[in-house]
């Protein structure tokens, strides 16, 4: 892996200057937030005024403060932390922040770079200093045995604070538009990356692992509270419903890809199966099946049909593996799309209305609770999408439950064994074929359930939603976020669905960036943003330091569990 | 005179597991040097490292004064070092002649044809069947082809990895006598063998490897006479 690094000699001689560099750099970055950025007052909610920071200016000040804190930490480094690494990440992020905003938000949007004022150049200097500070810091090995030992109630406080912060960040991010949104995201990536990169990430993971239940509870509470932050507006809730559907499907795919280690390039077909079943058995006037059972039955049928397809698509795994299997699944995915496209009565039986799809699917109604209507709960207005959001929250909770419980069971161990060494697994009595099929069936069933709900959320189903590119997106969510992890997939799904919604200006370049992202990720971080430890090891077979660190962390977790 | 091949403190690892744990030996021009030892002793690993297929974690390999540790495998052949790998590894779908010509891949001179004839002279059966796919050959014939192919690069040093493996005694004899012939023709040879007796008999020098270490060294005759060799192979106490 090619990394921009300085030689050990340079670090040894100049390492002592790092804290000062970091603090000066941080101060400059902090200062830049008070200065004027642009002569044009129309960009970034008017950043032309001095000493009156707003939006992106506040964000950069947060970055400055973070740099200063890291600089202080550098002078008195806890053994389990590596502020140097954090500073490097922060430095790069600051530079990216400045350049992106300077060149595009101000330069491109106002039509002239001349509109650039002093603020951003100052920030750039600061960012470079921070980066330098990170680079001259001598490399250290983390000693995770020195992690602070908090009482369990304090650990829960840590979790609650984390979650509250998360809720705030998400709600805030969603209220932003275009360049300010990008600025926020860059700040978040920079600060979070810097903080986590110092080693706090590993520690938080450890705390989380020790308090799995409170963590889950807090996470769901946050998710549950989210619609109440939206002030009755449904715009963000609509995006949120899509993120959840996408994430639930991606989690299903993650069982196949992340756990069983099989590549599926036609996975969107399972979501499609569920959606079509949901549509065909709905009350829609275009529904092609006369039988209209209650929704819970439809959901069950949808998941069963999808699981059956999963078994069919998975059955070649008996004879085919690796790339060939990927291509087989791609072929099945295309066949699904074409079949949905064709089955309109002209070509084959009339099931799907062909390219026109099945529109006019009515809203769900559970015991008189109409999902299409707004409801008022405790003074908060919840719109149509908020209703669906809460339903989908249950769905994804169920999916996460299935995913994590399967992962942490006899079957999960079997999957790991298959990924590690298929022939050895078989020689140890692991039913390789059966487990692979199971992965396909369970994943497909989950996607199928998501599909039946999706049909009602979208109110229509048509074949052009189930093209190969969508499967690629699902795969990208898994790969980007982290194979085999729940959090990773949630992060990946959110990024992939949210960015295009928020970045309409650069929408045309979305796919270009997506393609590039896949290539870059595979090259530099194939295990994904939030990697499972095991996957990380699989992708970095010869990184002995990583192995040692993972080992230590694991031992600590095992000890904590034993207590 | 400095050695033709000099291996110093060589360490090779597969991941965490060290297969060769710091061995030192040398080959002088004109010698037949043999490395013997049981399975897993690290003989093949040593040869593969010398010819550049593996990278050492420590130590140096010097061939005719040039350090080989960072030279890519495909350039090592043209320096005059040929390697006939364990298990023959001929190209099964190519004909005998094509296999032989591949041996001369790195050469650009005009004497390839005459060397082809020389290879045919060494193993007449190859000429008879020069247009047949090599995959149809028996083990012994494949071994001849592998040796002929290695000789096509006009090596100064020829490394042979287990040339007698799985061969009938008759065929083994034929292969071993070729080793003698090549030596007489002036090729220096580094021979890895399980058939210790046959190898040591011809060797000017021998090394016994055990679990990645050299445990015995001496001239061929010395080792042949040594009880330790017998012990190493048959577990006699």
């Amino acid at each position, binding site marked *: 892996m090619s990394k921009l690094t300085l030689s050990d000699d340079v670090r040894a001689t100049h390492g002592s200057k790092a804290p000062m560099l970091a603090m000066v750099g941080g101060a400059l970055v902090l200062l830049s937030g008070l200065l004027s950025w642009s002569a044009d007052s129309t960009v970034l909610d008017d950043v*032309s005024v001095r000493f009156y920071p707003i939006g992106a200016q506040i964000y950069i000040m947060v970055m400055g403060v973070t740099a200063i804190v890291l600089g202080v930490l550098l002078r008195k480094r806890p053994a389990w932390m590596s502020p140097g690494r954090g500073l490097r990440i922060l430095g790069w992020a600051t530079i990216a922040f400045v350049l992106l905003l300077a060149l595009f938000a101000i330069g491109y949007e106002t039509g002239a770079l001349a509109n650039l004022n002093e603020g951003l150049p100052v920030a750039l200097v600061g960012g470079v200093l921070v980066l330098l500070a990170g680079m001259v810091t001598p490399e250290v090995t983390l000693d995770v045995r020195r992690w602070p030992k908090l009482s369990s109630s304090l650990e829960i406080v840590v979790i609650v604070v984390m979650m509250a912060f998360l809720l705030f960040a998400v709600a805030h991010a969603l209220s932003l538009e275009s360049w300010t949104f990008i600025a926020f995201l860059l700040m978040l990536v920079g600060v979070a990356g810097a903080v986590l990169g110092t080693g706090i990430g590993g520690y938080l993971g450890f705390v989380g692992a020790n308090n799995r239940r409170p963590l889950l509870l807090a996470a769901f509470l946050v998710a549950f509270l989210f619609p109440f932050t939206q002030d009755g507006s449904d715009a963000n809730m609509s995006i949120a419903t899509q993120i959840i559907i996408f994430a639930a499907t991606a989690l299903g795919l993650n069982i196949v890809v992340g756990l069983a280690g099989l590549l599926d390039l036609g996975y969107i077909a399972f979501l499609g199966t569920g959606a079509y079943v949901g549509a065909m058995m709905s009350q829609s006037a275009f529904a092609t099946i006369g039988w209209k059972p209650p929704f819970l039955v439809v959901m069950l049928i949808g998941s069963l049909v999808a699981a059956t397809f999963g078994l069919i698509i998975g059955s070649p795994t008996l004879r085919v593996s690796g790339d060939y299997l990927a291509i087989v699944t791609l072929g099945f995915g295309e066949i699904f799309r074409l079949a949905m496209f*064709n089955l309109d009565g*002209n070509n084959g039986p009339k099931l799907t209305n062909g390219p026109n799809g099945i529109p006019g699917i009515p809203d769900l109604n559970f015991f008189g609770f109409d999902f299409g209507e707004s409801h008022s709960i405790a003074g908060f207005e919840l719109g149509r999408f908020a209703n669906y959001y809460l339903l989908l929250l249950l769905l994804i909770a169920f999916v996460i439950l299935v995913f994590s419980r399967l992962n942490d069971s006899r079957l999960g161990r079997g999957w790991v064994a298959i990924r590690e060494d298929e022939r050895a697994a078989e020689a140890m009595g692991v039913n390789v074929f059966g487990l692979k099929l199971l992965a396909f069936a369970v994943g497909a069933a989950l996607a199928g359930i998501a599909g039946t709900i999706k049909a009602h959320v979208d109110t229509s189903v048509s074949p052009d*939603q189930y093209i190969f590119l969508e499967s690629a997106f699902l795969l990208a969510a898994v790969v980007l976020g982290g194979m085999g992890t729940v959090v990773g997939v949630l992060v990946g799904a959110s990024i992939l669905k949210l960015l295009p919604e928020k970045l309409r200006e650069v929408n*045309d370049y979305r796919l270009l960036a997506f393609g590039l992202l896949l290539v870059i990720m595979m090259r530099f971080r194939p295990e994904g943003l939030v990697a499972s430890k095991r996957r990380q090891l699989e992708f970095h077979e010869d990184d002995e330091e990583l192995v040692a660190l993972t080992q230590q962390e694991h031992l600590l977790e095992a000890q904590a569990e034993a207590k | 005179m400095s050695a033709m091949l000099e291996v110093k403190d060589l360490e090779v690892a597969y991941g965490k597991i060290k297969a060769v744990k710091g061995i030192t030996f040398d080959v002088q021009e004109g010698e037949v040097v043999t490395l013997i030892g049981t399975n897993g002793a690290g003989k093949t690993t040593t040869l593969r490292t010398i010819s550049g297929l593996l990278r050492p974690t420590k130590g140096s390999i010097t061939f005719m004064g040039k350090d080989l540790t960072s030279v890519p495998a495909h350039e090592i052949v043209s320096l005059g070092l040929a390697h006939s790998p364990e298990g023959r590894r001929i190209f099964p779908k190519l004909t005998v002649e094509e296999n032989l010509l591949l041996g001369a891949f790195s050469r650009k001179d005009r004497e390839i044809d005459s060397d082809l004839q020389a290879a045919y002279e060494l193993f007449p059966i190859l000429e008879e069947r020069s247009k047949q796919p090599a995959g149809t050959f028996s083990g012994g014939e494949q071994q001849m082809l592998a040796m002929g192919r290695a000789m096509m690069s006009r090596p100064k040093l020829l490394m042979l990895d287990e040339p007698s493996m799985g061969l009938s005694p008759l065929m083994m004899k034929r292969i071993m006598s070729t080793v003698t012939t090549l030596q007489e023709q002036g090729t220096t040879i580094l021979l890895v063998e399980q058939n210790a007796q046959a190898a040591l008999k011809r060797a000017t020098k021998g090394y016994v490897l055990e679990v990645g270490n050299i445990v015995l060294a001496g001239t061929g005759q010395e080792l042949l006479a040594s009880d330790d060799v017998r012990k190493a192979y048959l577990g006699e106490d």
Partner: protein
Amino acid sequence: MPQRSVVMIGSSLVVASLALTGCGSRSSDSGTSSDSGSNKVAKIGVIAPLSGDLAALGKGIQNSVDLAIKQANESKAIPGWTLEISAQDDEAKPDVGKNAATKLASDKDVVGVVGTLNSSVAQSVQPVLAAADITQVSPANTNPSLTQGADFATAPKRTYATYFRTCTTDSIQGPFAAQYLFNTAGIKEVATVHDKKTYGQGLVEAFTKEFEKLGGKVVAAETINPDDDKYDAVISKIKPANPAAVYYGGEYPQGAPFSQQMKAAGLNVPLMGGDGLYSGKYMELAGATADGDLATSVGAPTDTLASAKEFVDAYGKGGYADPYEAYGAYAYDAANAIIEALKTSLKDAKSAEEARKATVEAMSKVKFSGVTGDVAFDEYGDTTSRVLTVYGVKGGKWEAIKTDAFK
């Protein structure tokens, strides 16, 4: 603490130097923000594909709406109100379209929406906008079921009171073409091909019904997959039936190459289609052999209508980067229809949101002479305009052959 002093000195130096350079404003700060002043704001939304394959068509729609709004603001069409555009991308995908609609619905200033391009997107946008009482006028949806319900052929029933369209449905264009081919061109045997999409299939179905009613014969009926580039297998299937013309239901990206390949394969008969073929791009893609191909389009030819000429001129002067494309004129009319309705509904309204319902009601009374002909809506929300024109390719250009009112 030497570091601290360094920080202080460093930062004060920077501040001082910046103050000295006196980095003032280098571009006019005033900007071009509208002098809305005391005027209230009402927004007309646009939902169209602004990225992806169909972006060209979507941009044409967006720009045309923009033009209509600018003109209305300039002429102060609605006293006390300033109109604004809020364009949303649907990527031609139903779920993205739904998000866009939700966003517009939750914007309290939005009173009307022009869009969508695709019937499939309309299906997911309709319910969202209807729930918020926002008027929707589509410049391009041709699927009859959008206005007349799933059983449009047997038992038409209006599905969403908020939905209108300025383009004709497939059930008018197809028969019009059939009448032209059978009566005017004297062609009795045709083959039909369509791309299975709502538009193409609907067109061919309506065409076939009328053509057979007139006494003509459809000698071959085939379909293609719009993802395909090569149609020779289909053409080979049609050719032995010896049709005198081929009626194509679909859009020019497939129709034009189909014509070209048809002729290269030796089937030298005219290809006829609907307004999906009527585009300047058709000739580029169909090549030199396109002469004689036919297309129907709604309304009289633009150069015969004064209002249309004005639109073309104004659009040209508007400085838009993209051409108005096939649906620009319809979008312009759609926007103007909404503006017409707003003239009544906004008159006494305090806020835009309040006027939503009244706008829907006012829509049914809208009647004016637009770019594509007379604009008015029937009881289902469909356009009442039934004037159509047959165009033919001649010397690499579309030329009007026959304009008539459909009976």
